[in-house]
């Protein structure tokens, strides 16, 4: 990896994106001091990171497992104590979280008797059991059904509300869209996009509009360009129209209503997915 320079604002959700093999896991391992960078430094709270800071982190790796033969309760105690909690603190915390997830009766079950999704829940609890100030979640939703995805999402938002900073790495763009405040896109060990979600979206507006209409729209000129046309279920024609930078949406609309009956008019804002794909492809072609 080279020239990675990222800043994660406090108490925000930071999305770390990138295709497979881009170097996300390596970067996370450097942040969590599992491996060390040849050059470069990691700063935490404005100063160089030390081993005490690592204790304040909670890291949920993408590839994760638990000891199959251990019971849920004792496994959580073990992981919590490795994080520096005393036995009693651990017990209190475990009770709190098992209650919160309504899984108190799992405590005496063996890990091997749990489904994959159930194990993921235990791993999530283990990650945040010591109230970390920096939480790093690598693909936290894998293995969850939609109901549990929502439960975990709510937890993540609550953790942020309670003051935690969260670094969030995933391929699921819809959750990025929903959760993240800041985003960095890494490809081939380089940062190719970095900023707040709002700014990125602004910068990637394409001045494209989606219009549903009836009638016939013929008056295209150099300012307005119809990219796509299709028919909707309702029998309208749906056109994707791109306007040049010096034109406003109102110009387009006034042009349209002179000729056709407009049923719907909407700016086509790029999704994170679109941005992700176009950015990665750009790199690929460059």
């Amino acid at each position, binding site marked *: 990896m080279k020239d990675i320079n990222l800043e994660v604002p406090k108490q925000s959700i930071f999305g770390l994106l990138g295709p497979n093999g881009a170097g996300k896991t390596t970067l996370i391992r450097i942040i969590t001091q599992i491996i060390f960078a040849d050059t470069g430094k990691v700063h935490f709270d404005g100063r160089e990171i030390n081993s005490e800071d690592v204790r304040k982190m909670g890291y949920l790796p993408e*590839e994760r497992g638990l000891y199959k*033969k*251990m019971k849920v309760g004792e496994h959580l105690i073990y992981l919590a104590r490795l994080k520096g909690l005393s036995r009693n603190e651990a017990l209190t915390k475990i009770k709190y979280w098992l209650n919160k997830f309504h899984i108190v009766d799992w405590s005496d079950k063996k890990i091997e008797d749990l489904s994959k999704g159930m194990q993921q829940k235990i791993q999530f609890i283990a990650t945040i059991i010591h109230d970390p100030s920096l939480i790093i979640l690598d693909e936290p939703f894998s293995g969850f059904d939609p109901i549990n995805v929502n439960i975990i999402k709510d937890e993540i938002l609550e953790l942020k509300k309670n003051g935690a900073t969260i670094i969030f790495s995933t391929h699921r763009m819809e959750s990025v869209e929903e959760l993240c405040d800041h985003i960095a896109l890494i490809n081939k060990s380089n940062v190719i996009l970095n900023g707040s979600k709002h700014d990125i979206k602004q910068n990637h507006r394409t001045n494209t509009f989606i219009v549903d209409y009836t009638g016939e729209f013929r008056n295209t000129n150099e300012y307005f360009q119809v990219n796509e046309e299709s028919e909707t279920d309702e029998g309208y024609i749906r056109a994707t129209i791109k306007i040049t930078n010096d034109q406003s949406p109102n110009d387009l609309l006034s042009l349209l209503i002179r000729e056709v009956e407009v049923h719907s008019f909407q700016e086509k804002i790029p999704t994170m997915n679109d941005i992700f794909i176009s950015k990665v492809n750009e790199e690929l072609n460059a």
Partner: protein
Amino acid sequence: MHNIFLIIQREYITRVRKKSFLIMSIVGPLLIASLWVVPIWLSTRDTDQKTIEILDDSGYFNEKFTETSSLKFEYIQTDLVAAKTEILSGENYGLLYIPRINLDDPEGITFFSGKNPSIEVIQDLEWAMKSVVENIKLERSSIDQATLDSLRADIDIDMINMTESGEKAGSAGVATIIGYISALMIYFFIFVYGIQILRGVIEEKSSRIVEVIVSSVKPFHLMMGKILGVGAVGLTQYVIWLVLSIMITTGISSYFNIDRKDSLPAQTEQVEVIQEDQGNEFVAEMFNSLESIDFGLLAFAFFVYFIGAYLLYGSLFAAIGSAVDNDADAQQFQLPVTIPLIFSLIVLTAILREPDGSLAFWLSMIPLFSPVIMMMRIPFGVPYWEIALSLTFLIAGFIFTTWLASRIYRIGILMHGSKVNYRILGKWLFMKN
């Protein structure tokens, strides 16, 4: 350090709790105890005396059989047919029929019994008859018993070990047995628990538990915690074996009301007096010469070589486990680690021939071989300076292998999918951080 302790604790508790540990702890001592108890039990079980009728037509054997704890004899004078029917209906065990025989070529001696006679009985009878015939033949050659006794030479070299604390009876036999047992125990321990470390590391790696653990624990601590935890399990197992073996052995022997010393004179009453005597002498000599072995030193050496060897090989096994993804891939790396172990076992016979030779000396200095070789040599007596030097090398050796292993381990546990060979391992070794 707090974390190492937690890891050791987890390794120890989860392993000791396993059923297989419990079963091994019970079966092991039973096996050991049965090695002692079964032969003793077998020798005392056969207490009822069998009566054997002797029908001697030759006249050579009249009143010549001596009664033993298992056999007594009745001499009869009827004809063969009547005697045979008597055996079939009567209580007696069997009938030994001796026809008129030519002493140079005795033929036709027959044993009749209702059921198949035991080999032991037949052998006893053959032995007894043989000595009777031999005596008659000696008399014929005008050699009487007294002359014969005076001709017989019985040479027995007494072995005395001279040590600073005085002279003690020595025995190469005892030293060999004790050496073998301790060498084998170290070998067995390293193998069984080394493989457990290997499996444990592979399990943690392939199930991606390490990924979770290394975010709160240094890889080196995780590795050492596992090695020490598994080692503690092994030591526990041995202590259980030792205690249970002693308990079972003494328990069963007192149940049969036998004590090794009591059972020895009982055996002398048997027919093959000469042989038995030699056997007893050997056993007695063995017990005497146990004194010649410095058990304090032996126990100390066993303990330190045990731990040294375990740490040395254990860390190598941990390194192998970290480098591979599954048991099958581990095979190719396991071989170079197990070869020195197996080699030291094979070379033991050569060491025995010359426990103070140069081969023995040099192998005792090489940490990979020294634990097994030294345990073989110590019962024969090894100068303290040699033990000290060998231990120094062993400690240096395990510090080196632990360092080596930790370099490979820290990278290996997080590597997946890539085929690892020795060149890559070498690269990991010298990788920074």
